[in-house]
């Protein structure tokens, strides 16, 4: 079984390792300089709240509570879809969030207000691609 072979690979500890990789990246502080917001990363039924400031992840939480007051947008996909996305060389149709979300494929759903999603697409794409280095 591969390291992405079971659900627990996307637990909070995995998300933390990814977030630390994001925060060590030297390109994101440039291209994500104006990316400040809160988005939800959905893996199967689990929701992680990711709080971003100037391209760096400041806080991650498992589960969303009333006191979080919602989020800007969310990206929801199955753990098997995220597992394919996070492979070092991802397979066709799973190598990009817009590829996965495109109406032809529907492997990922963008929920909430999609305006900040599109506004920050470049930084977000880089941020998520760093899952391949976790």
């Amino acid at each position, binding site marked *: 079984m591969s390291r992405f*072979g079971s659900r627990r690979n996307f637990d909070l500890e995995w998300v933390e390792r990814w977030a630390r990789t994001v925060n060590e990246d030297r390109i994101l502080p440039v291209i994500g300089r104006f990316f400040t917001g809160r988005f939800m990363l959905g893996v199967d039924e689990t929701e992680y709240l990711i709080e971003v400031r100037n391209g760096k992840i400041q806080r991650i939480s498992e589960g969303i509570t009333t006191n979080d007051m919602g989020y800007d947008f969310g990206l929801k996909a199955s753990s098997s879809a995220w597992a394919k996305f996070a492979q070092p060389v991802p397979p066709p149709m799973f190598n990009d969030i817009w590829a996965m979300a495109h109406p032809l494929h529907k492997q990922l759903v963008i929920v909430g207000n999609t*305006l900040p999603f599109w506004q920050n697409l470049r930084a977000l794409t880089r941020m998520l691609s760093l899952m391949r280095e976790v």
Partner: protein
Amino acid sequence: MNKHDPIVGRYVYVPCEGKTYRTYYEEAGEGIPLVCLHTAGTDGRQYRHQLCDPDITANFRVIAFDLPWHGKSLPPSDFYLMEDEYKLTTKFYCEFIVAFCRALELRKPVVMGQSMGGNVCLALALRYENEFSALIALEGCDYSPGWWIDPLHHPHIHGGEVVATSVFGLMSPESPDEYRWETWWYYAQGGPGVFKGDLYFYSVDSDFRDQVHKISGKLPIYFLTGEYDFACTPEMTERTAEKVKGSECIIFSGGHFPTSEDPVKFKTVISPVLKKIIQNDPERRGQDSAALRSNLVELRTTSRNERPTSRRVIEL
């Protein structure tokens, strides 16, 4: 001695639908005219590697033009008075390609287009089959929905960055970084709303699903699609090719922008097609040239069962 590319760029005046468009094009080589169509929102630079490849230009006069609104070709002078956003239509696109070829007095050219340039090959085969000697549809199919969307032209969203990033995933992760990011740059340089306006053609006005069976088959059509193309998937191209008489279909391990994202791989994929075009050219052009001694390598058609083995597949 300074190093130069062999490419020469010029402007030609092309009449189309009552207006005249000062149109930029680049060319290199001699032989069969090979007119190259860029993808949505970009320009002829996507063909810079093919324009500089002596194995291609020994037999082909390679010509890449910028559609109006793209690259160095301007929009119509009264564009600021338009009462609708820019939208490329099938009618204008076809007529412009034919008018451009006539403006250059090309005789029975081959057309090679990618993405929307691939899709328009179907319309050219339906409407203008006598104008051309062969068509090469890169990343083409008879219907490619889902791209005529507002986020690609919105005042609250950086057009260049969102347009370029929206197409980045269409490329194979195994294509060289430097060429993938060059392709990204082309996209980031498009005028506001031009990519989206081209996608009106790509996703709305070019639904040929009920028409492609009418293509006569007299004009050879080659379909080539990369397996990472999520806008025009290999399956979409294969389904189209099955309906088009006289067509061949090649699926390869690349992406949506083969000429610019991985020109070395593209050469191995396109060379057998170009060789066939030389051998079958109705005008017998290029036969006595370097065709037989060129490096246009043979490559058999890849079937869907022969995907590259290098990709890691994880069983879940």
